Protein backbone atom coordinates (compact mmCIF):
# COMPACT_ATOMS: atom_id res chain seq x y z
CA UNK A 1 0.00 0.00 0.00
CA UNK A 2 1.31 3.46 -0.92
CA UNK A 3 2.20 5.80 1.91
CA UNK A 4 0.78 9.31 1.83
CA UNK A 5 4.24 10.61 0.95
CA UNK A 6 4.54 8.23 -2.00
CA UNK A 7 1.08 9.18 -3.20
CA UNK A 8 1.91 12.87 -2.94
CA UNK A 9 5.20 12.52 -4.77
CA UNK A 10 3.29 10.76 -7.59
CA UNK A 11 0.84 13.69 -7.93
CA UNK A 12 3.54 16.34 -7.36
CA UNK A 13 3.62 17.50 -11.05
CA UNK A 14 -0.12 18.11 -10.77
CA UNK A 15 0.31 20.11 -7.56
CA UNK A 16 3.08 22.20 -9.11
CA UNK A 17 0.77 22.85 -12.07
CA UNK A 18 -2.08 23.92 -9.74
CA UNK A 19 0.13 26.37 -7.85
CA UNK A 20 1.11 28.08 -11.12
CA UNK A 21 -2.47 28.96 -12.08
CA UNK A 22 -3.76 32.44 -11.28
CA UNK A 23 -6.54 32.25 -8.62
CA UNK A 24 -9.88 31.87 -10.39
CA UNK A 25 -13.17 30.01 -9.86
CA UNK A 26 -12.98 27.89 -13.00
CA UNK A 27 -10.48 27.50 -15.80
CA UNK A 28 -10.50 26.45 -19.43
CA UNK A 29 -8.20 23.55 -20.34
CA UNK A 30 -7.49 25.05 -23.77
CA UNK A 31 -6.67 28.60 -22.73
CA UNK A 32 -5.62 28.52 -19.06
CA UNK A 33 -4.15 25.04 -18.52
CA UNK A 34 -2.19 24.86 -21.77
CA UNK A 35 -0.45 28.14 -20.93
CA UNK A 36 0.97 26.50 -17.82
CA UNK A 37 1.31 22.85 -18.91
CA UNK A 38 2.51 23.47 -22.46
CA UNK A 39 0.09 21.20 -24.32
CA UNK A 40 -3.42 19.79 -24.03
CA UNK A 41 -2.27 16.18 -23.33
CA UNK A 42 0.11 17.37 -20.57
CA UNK A 43 -2.61 19.59 -19.11
CA UNK A 44 -4.98 16.60 -18.91
CA UNK A 45 -2.25 14.41 -17.39
CA UNK A 46 -1.70 17.03 -14.65
CA UNK A 47 -5.44 17.40 -14.10
CA UNK A 48 -6.02 13.65 -13.87
CA UNK A 49 -3.31 13.42 -11.22
CA UNK A 50 -5.05 16.14 -9.22
CA UNK A 51 -8.45 14.52 -9.78
CA UNK A 52 -7.15 11.21 -8.42
CA UNK A 53 -6.84 12.73 -4.94
CA UNK A 54 -9.78 15.12 -5.11
CA UNK A 55 -7.80 18.27 -5.84
CA UNK A 56 -9.48 19.05 -9.18
CA UNK A 57 -12.83 18.65 -10.86
CA UNK A 58 -12.72 18.43 -14.66
CA UNK A 59 -15.77 18.69 -16.88
CA UNK A 60 -16.06 19.29 -20.60
CA UNK A 61 -12.89 21.29 -21.12
CA UNK A 62 -13.36 23.28 -17.92
CA UNK A 63 -11.92 22.59 -14.49
CA UNK A 64 -11.81 23.76 -10.90
CA UNK A 65 -8.94 23.45 -8.43
CA UNK A 66 -9.50 22.58 -4.78
CA UNK A 67 -7.56 25.29 -2.94
CA UNK A 68 -6.27 22.68 -0.51
CA UNK A 69 -3.69 22.07 -3.28
CA UNK A 70 -2.11 25.38 -2.24
CA UNK A 71 -1.41 24.25 1.33
CA UNK A 72 2.29 23.66 2.20
CA UNK A 73 3.53 20.09 1.43
CA UNK A 74 3.71 19.01 5.09
CA UNK A 75 0.03 20.00 5.56
CA UNK A 76 -1.05 18.54 2.22
CA UNK A 77 0.43 15.20 3.22
CA UNK A 78 -1.84 15.15 6.28
CA UNK A 79 -4.83 16.17 4.14
CA UNK A 80 -4.61 13.20 1.77
CA UNK A 81 -6.80 10.81 3.85
CA UNK A 82 -9.49 13.51 4.15
CA UNK A 83 -9.27 14.33 0.44
CA UNK A 84 -9.66 10.67 -0.51
CA UNK A 85 -12.57 10.19 1.89
CA UNK A 86 -14.34 13.27 0.49
CA UNK A 87 -13.71 12.16 -3.08
CA UNK A 88 -15.41 8.81 -2.39
CA UNK A 89 -18.17 10.30 -0.22
CA UNK A 90 -21.77 9.15 -0.72
CA UNK A 91 -24.63 11.57 -0.19
CA UNK A 92 -28.08 10.43 0.90
CA UNK A 93 -31.49 11.97 1.40
CA UNK A 94 -34.99 10.77 2.27
CA UNK A 95 -37.16 13.75 3.14
CA UNK A 96 -34.37 16.27 2.36
CA UNK A 97 -35.06 17.87 5.69
CA UNK A 98 -33.48 18.05 9.14
CA UNK A 99 -35.43 14.89 10.00
CA UNK A 100 -32.94 12.93 7.82
CA UNK A 101 -30.14 14.21 10.03
CA UNK A 102 -32.01 13.38 13.23
CA UNK A 103 -32.61 9.86 11.95
CA UNK A 104 -28.91 9.16 11.38
CA UNK A 105 -27.87 10.87 14.62
CA UNK A 106 -30.18 8.43 16.42
CA UNK A 107 -28.93 5.45 14.41
CA UNK A 108 -25.20 6.04 14.07
CA UNK A 109 -23.28 2.94 12.96
CA UNK A 110 -20.91 1.42 15.50
CA UNK A 111 -17.49 3.14 15.70
CA UNK A 112 -18.66 5.95 13.42
CA UNK A 113 -17.85 9.56 14.13
CA UNK A 114 -19.22 12.88 12.97
CA UNK A 115 -17.00 15.44 11.27
CA UNK A 116 -17.20 18.75 9.32
CA UNK A 117 -20.35 20.92 9.72
CA UNK A 118 -21.93 19.36 12.83
CA UNK A 119 -18.69 18.59 14.67
CA UNK A 120 -17.28 22.04 13.81
CA UNK A 121 -20.46 23.60 15.21
CA UNK A 122 -20.10 21.56 18.39
CA UNK A 123 -16.47 22.68 18.73
CA UNK A 124 -16.82 26.35 17.83
CA UNK A 125 -20.50 27.47 17.69
CA UNK A 126 -19.35 29.56 14.74
CA UNK A 127 -21.34 28.55 11.62
CA UNK A 128 -24.67 26.78 11.65
CA UNK A 129 -24.35 23.22 10.33
CA UNK A 130 -26.00 22.11 7.09
CA UNK A 131 -24.95 18.55 6.22
CA UNK A 132 -24.20 15.60 8.50
CA UNK A 133 -20.84 14.06 7.52
CA UNK A 134 -20.17 10.73 9.18
CA UNK A 135 -17.07 8.52 9.00
CA UNK A 136 -18.03 4.85 9.01
CA UNK A 137 -16.00 1.61 9.13
CA UNK A 138 -17.80 0.10 6.14
CA UNK A 139 -19.36 2.56 3.69
CA UNK A 140 -21.18 -0.19 1.72
CA UNK A 141 -22.83 -1.56 4.86
CA UNK A 142 -23.84 1.93 6.04
CA UNK A 143 -25.18 2.80 2.56
CA UNK A 144 -27.25 -0.37 2.45
CA UNK A 145 -28.63 0.39 5.91
CA UNK A 146 -29.73 3.88 4.76
CA UNK A 147 -31.25 2.49 1.54
CA UNK A 148 -33.19 -0.09 3.58
CA UNK A 149 -34.67 2.85 5.52
CA UNK A 150 -35.87 4.62 2.38
CA UNK A 151 -32.88 6.90 1.72
CA UNK A 152 -31.66 7.52 -1.85
CA UNK A 153 -28.09 8.09 -2.96
CA UNK A 154 -27.77 11.33 -4.96
CA UNK A 155 -26.39 14.85 -5.05
CA UNK A 156 -28.75 16.79 -2.83
CA UNK A 157 -29.27 14.94 0.46
CA UNK A 158 -28.00 16.19 3.80
CA UNK A 159 -26.36 12.93 4.92
CA UNK A 160 -22.83 12.26 3.72
CA UNK A 161 -21.03 9.00 4.44
CA UNK A 162 -17.24 8.93 4.45
CA UNK A 163 -15.07 5.83 4.50
CA UNK A 164 -12.94 5.84 7.63
CA UNK A 165 -9.27 5.61 6.57
CA UNK A 166 -7.84 4.87 10.01
CA UNK A 167 -8.80 5.33 13.64
CA UNK A 168 -8.12 8.93 14.45
CA UNK A 169 -6.48 9.55 17.81
CA UNK A 170 -7.03 13.29 17.72
CA UNK A 171 -10.64 13.97 16.70
CA UNK A 172 -10.26 17.76 16.81
CA UNK A 173 -7.30 17.61 14.44
CA UNK A 174 -9.17 15.20 12.17
CA UNK A 175 -12.12 17.62 11.92
CA UNK A 176 -9.70 20.51 11.33
CA UNK A 177 -7.97 18.66 8.47
CA UNK A 178 -11.32 17.59 6.99
CA UNK A 179 -12.43 21.24 7.00
CA UNK A 180 -9.29 22.35 5.14
CA UNK A 181 -9.60 19.47 2.65
CA UNK A 182 -13.24 20.26 1.92
CA UNK A 183 -12.67 23.99 1.50
CA UNK A 184 -15.52 26.45 0.92
CA UNK A 185 -17.21 27.65 4.12
CA UNK A 186 -15.44 24.87 6.03
CA UNK A 187 -12.22 26.92 5.77
CA UNK A 188 -13.86 29.37 8.19
CA UNK A 189 -14.67 26.42 10.48
CA UNK A 190 -11.00 25.35 10.35
CA UNK A 191 -9.90 28.85 11.34
CA UNK A 192 -12.46 28.92 14.16
CA UNK A 193 -11.21 25.52 15.39
CA UNK A 194 -7.62 26.79 15.33
CA UNK A 195 -8.61 29.93 17.25
CA UNK A 196 -10.51 27.98 19.90
CA UNK A 197 -8.57 24.71 20.09
CA UNK A 198 -5.14 25.60 18.67
CA UNK A 199 -3.43 23.86 21.58
CA UNK A 200 -4.92 20.51 20.46
CA UNK A 201 -3.51 20.75 16.93
CA UNK A 202 -0.13 19.30 15.99
CA UNK A 203 -0.28 20.80 12.53
CA UNK A 204 -1.48 24.21 11.33
CA UNK A 205 -2.89 25.04 7.89
CA UNK A 206 -2.16 28.17 5.87
CA UNK A 207 -5.04 30.64 5.63
CA UNK A 208 -5.59 34.06 4.11
CA UNK A 209 -5.11 36.85 6.63
CA UNK A 210 -8.47 38.41 5.66
CA UNK A 211 -10.25 35.14 6.47
CA UNK A 212 -8.50 34.86 9.84
CA UNK A 213 -9.41 38.46 10.70
CA UNK A 214 -13.01 37.87 9.60
CA UNK A 215 -13.43 34.83 11.87
CA UNK A 216 -11.71 36.59 14.77
CA UNK A 217 -14.00 39.57 14.26
CA UNK A 218 -17.15 37.43 13.91
CA UNK A 219 -16.33 35.47 17.07
CA UNK A 220 -16.03 38.56 19.23
CA UNK A 221 -18.57 38.76 21.95
CA UNK A 222 -19.97 41.92 23.45
CA UNK A 223 -17.75 43.50 26.07
CA UNK A 224 -18.94 46.76 27.60
CA UNK A 225 -17.81 48.64 30.70
Amino acid at each position, binding site marked *: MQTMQQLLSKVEPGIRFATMLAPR*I*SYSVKTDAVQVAGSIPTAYRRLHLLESI*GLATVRRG*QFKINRAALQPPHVLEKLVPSLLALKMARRFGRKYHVSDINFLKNNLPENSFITL*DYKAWELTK*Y*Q*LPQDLYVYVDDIDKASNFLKSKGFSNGNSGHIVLLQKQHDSKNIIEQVYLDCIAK*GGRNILDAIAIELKHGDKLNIKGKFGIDDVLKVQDDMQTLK*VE
Partner: protein
Amino acid sequence: MNNLLNEALKISQELGDVIFIGALATCLHTKNRRDSQDLDFVVLSPISDEELLAKKYKKSLTGKQPWFTPRGVKIDIYTRDIPSVSFEAIVKYSKEFPVGKKGSIRVLGLEPLVVAKHTAQRDQDIEDLQSIAKSKLKEIDWDVVRSITGDKYKTDLIKKDLEFLAKSNT
Protein backbone atom coordinates in the same frame (compact mmCIF):
# COMPACT_ATOMS: atom_id res chain seq x y z
CA MET B 1 -31.86 30.72 11.11
CA ASN B 2 -35.31 31.72 12.37
CA ASN B 3 -33.69 33.58 15.25
CA LEU B 4 -31.52 35.50 12.83
CA LEU B 5 -34.52 36.29 10.60
CA ASN B 6 -36.50 37.58 13.57
CA GLU B 7 -33.49 39.67 14.59
CA ALA B 8 -33.27 41.06 11.04
CA LEU B 9 -36.93 42.01 11.23
CA LYS B 10 -36.43 43.80 14.56
CA ILE B 11 -33.43 45.70 13.14
CA SER B 12 -35.55 46.78 10.16
CA GLN B 13 -38.27 48.00 12.53
CA GLU B 14 -35.79 49.84 14.77
CA LEU B 15 -33.46 51.39 12.18
CA GLY B 16 -35.81 51.97 9.26
CA ASP B 17 -34.84 51.16 5.69
CA VAL B 18 -31.99 48.63 5.71
CA ILE B 19 -30.92 46.02 3.16
CA PHE B 20 -29.37 42.80 4.45
CA ILE B 21 -26.33 41.53 2.59
CA GLY B 22 -23.82 38.76 3.36
CA ALA B 23 -24.75 35.31 4.62
CA LEU B 24 -28.39 36.13 5.41
CA ALA B 25 -28.94 37.18 1.78
CA THR B 26 -27.37 33.94 0.55
CA CYS B 27 -29.48 31.90 2.99
CA LEU B 28 -32.72 33.50 1.85
CA HIS B 29 -31.95 33.06 -1.83
CA THR B 30 -30.65 29.49 -1.61
CA LYS B 31 -31.99 27.99 1.65
CA ASN B 32 -28.38 27.10 2.50
CA ARG B 33 -28.29 27.78 6.21
CA ARG B 34 -24.53 27.79 6.84
CA ASP B 35 -23.78 31.18 8.29
CA SER B 36 -22.09 32.81 11.21
CA GLN B 37 -24.31 34.36 13.85
CA ASP B 38 -23.96 37.99 12.77
CA LEU B 39 -25.85 40.29 10.43
CA ASP B 40 -24.45 42.60 7.73
CA PHE B 41 -26.63 45.32 6.29
CA VAL B 42 -26.60 48.53 4.29
CA VAL B 43 -28.42 51.54 5.74
CA LEU B 44 -30.18 53.79 3.24
CA SER B 45 -29.71 56.89 5.36
CA PRO B 46 -26.60 57.30 7.52
CA ILE B 47 -27.12 56.55 11.18
CA SER B 48 -24.98 58.12 13.90
CA ASP B 49 -23.44 56.41 16.93
CA GLU B 50 -25.70 58.56 19.14
CA GLU B 51 -28.83 57.33 17.33
CA LEU B 52 -27.71 53.72 17.69
CA LEU B 53 -26.97 54.18 21.39
CA ALA B 54 -30.37 55.86 21.87
CA LYS B 55 -31.99 52.76 20.36
CA LYS B 56 -30.10 50.61 22.92
CA TYR B 57 -27.55 49.28 20.41
CA LYS B 58 -24.19 48.61 22.06
CA LYS B 59 -20.62 49.16 20.94
CA SER B 60 -18.09 46.61 22.14
CA LEU B 61 -14.86 47.85 23.65
CA THR B 62 -12.83 45.00 22.14
CA GLY B 63 -10.87 44.75 18.89
CA LYS B 64 -12.50 46.59 16.02
CA GLN B 65 -15.27 47.76 18.36
CA PRO B 66 -18.17 46.11 16.59
CA TRP B 67 -21.80 47.02 17.22
CA PHE B 68 -24.32 44.68 18.82
CA THR B 69 -28.11 44.83 18.75
CA PRO B 70 -29.99 45.29 22.04
CA ARG B 71 -30.40 41.48 22.01
CA GLY B 72 -26.65 40.87 21.66
CA VAL B 73 -26.34 39.95 17.97
CA LYS B 74 -23.23 41.30 16.27
CA ILE B 75 -23.90 43.61 13.31
CA ASP B 76 -21.83 45.19 10.54
CA ILE B 77 -23.30 48.40 9.15
CA TYR B 78 -22.42 49.52 5.60
CA THR B 79 -23.18 52.98 4.31
CA ARG B 80 -21.81 52.81 0.77
CA ASP B 81 -20.98 50.48 -2.16
CA ILE B 82 -19.99 46.85 -1.62
CA PRO B 83 -17.30 45.29 -3.89
CA SER B 84 -18.27 45.83 -7.55
CA VAL B 85 -21.86 46.79 -6.69
CA SER B 86 -22.83 50.44 -6.47
CA PHE B 87 -25.04 51.74 -3.69
CA GLU B 88 -27.70 52.55 -6.33
CA ALA B 89 -27.66 48.94 -7.60
CA ILE B 90 -27.92 47.59 -4.03
CA VAL B 91 -31.09 49.63 -3.54
CA LYS B 92 -32.55 49.21 -7.04
CA TYR B 93 -32.25 45.41 -7.10
CA SER B 94 -33.03 44.67 -3.46
CA LYS B 95 -35.76 42.12 -2.77
CA GLU B 96 -38.43 41.92 -0.10
CA PHE B 97 -38.66 38.62 1.85
CA PRO B 98 -41.57 37.93 4.23
CA VAL B 99 -40.72 36.89 7.80
CA GLY B 100 -43.71 34.74 8.75
CA LYS B 101 -46.75 36.93 9.28
CA LYS B 102 -44.82 39.48 11.28
CA GLY B 103 -43.51 41.62 8.44
CA SER B 104 -40.77 41.58 5.85
CA ILE B 105 -37.13 42.47 5.39
CA ARG B 106 -35.20 43.82 2.41
CA VAL B 107 -32.33 41.72 1.14
CA LEU B 108 -29.67 42.15 -1.52
CA GLY B 109 -31.05 40.92 -4.86
CA LEU B 110 -29.80 37.77 -6.56
CA GLU B 111 -27.85 39.56 -9.30
CA PRO B 112 -25.90 41.99 -7.08
CA LEU B 113 -25.23 39.10 -4.68
CA VAL B 114 -23.73 37.06 -7.52
CA VAL B 115 -21.57 39.99 -8.67
CA ALA B 116 -20.31 40.76 -5.15
CA LYS B 117 -19.47 37.12 -4.41
CA HIS B 118 -17.80 36.61 -7.78
CA THR B 119 -15.64 39.67 -7.14
CA ALA B 120 -14.62 38.55 -3.63
CA GLN B 121 -13.89 34.91 -4.65
CA ARG B 122 -12.99 33.81 -1.13
CA ASP B 123 -13.54 30.10 -0.38
CA GLN B 124 -16.88 30.82 1.28
CA ASP B 125 -17.98 32.98 -1.67
CA ILE B 126 -17.27 30.17 -4.10
CA GLU B 127 -19.34 27.74 -2.01
CA ASP B 128 -22.16 30.30 -1.85
CA LEU B 129 -21.94 30.81 -5.62
CA GLN B 130 -22.21 27.06 -6.06
CA SER B 131 -25.39 26.98 -3.93
CA ILE B 132 -26.79 29.85 -5.98
CA ALA B 133 -25.80 28.17 -9.25
CA LYS B 134 -27.44 24.89 -8.25
CA SER B 135 -30.73 26.40 -7.15
CA LYS B 136 -31.13 29.72 -8.96
CA LEU B 137 -29.11 29.70 -12.18
CA LYS B 138 -32.20 29.92 -14.39
CA GLU B 139 -33.59 32.84 -12.39
CA ILE B 140 -30.56 35.09 -12.84
CA ASP B 141 -31.28 38.03 -15.16
CA TRP B 142 -28.00 38.40 -17.07
CA ASP B 143 -29.02 41.83 -18.40
CA VAL B 144 -29.19 43.01 -14.78
CA VAL B 145 -25.78 41.43 -14.06
CA ARG B 146 -24.41 43.24 -17.13
CA SER B 147 -25.87 46.54 -15.96
CA ILE B 148 -24.20 46.09 -12.55
CA THR B 149 -20.79 45.07 -13.87
CA GLY B 150 -20.93 47.47 -16.84
CA ASP B 151 -18.68 44.96 -18.57
CA LYS B 152 -19.63 42.23 -21.06
CA TYR B 153 -16.40 40.25 -20.51
CA LYS B 154 -16.89 40.11 -16.72
CA THR B 155 -20.56 39.18 -17.15
CA ASP B 156 -19.63 36.33 -19.52
CA LEU B 157 -16.99 35.13 -17.07
CA ILE B 158 -19.49 35.10 -14.18
CA LYS B 159 -21.99 33.18 -16.33
CA LYS B 160 -19.37 30.63 -17.39
CA ASP B 161 -18.22 30.08 -13.79
CA LEU B 162 -21.77 29.67 -12.50
CA GLU B 163 -22.72 27.23 -15.26
CA PHE B 164 -19.65 25.16 -14.37
CA LEU B 165 -20.40 25.29 -10.62
CA ALA B 166 -24.02 24.23 -11.25
CA LYS B 167 -22.81 20.98 -12.78
CA SER B 168 -19.89 20.40 -10.46
CA ASN B 169 -20.38 18.16 -7.43
CA THR B 170 -17.53 19.30 -5.22
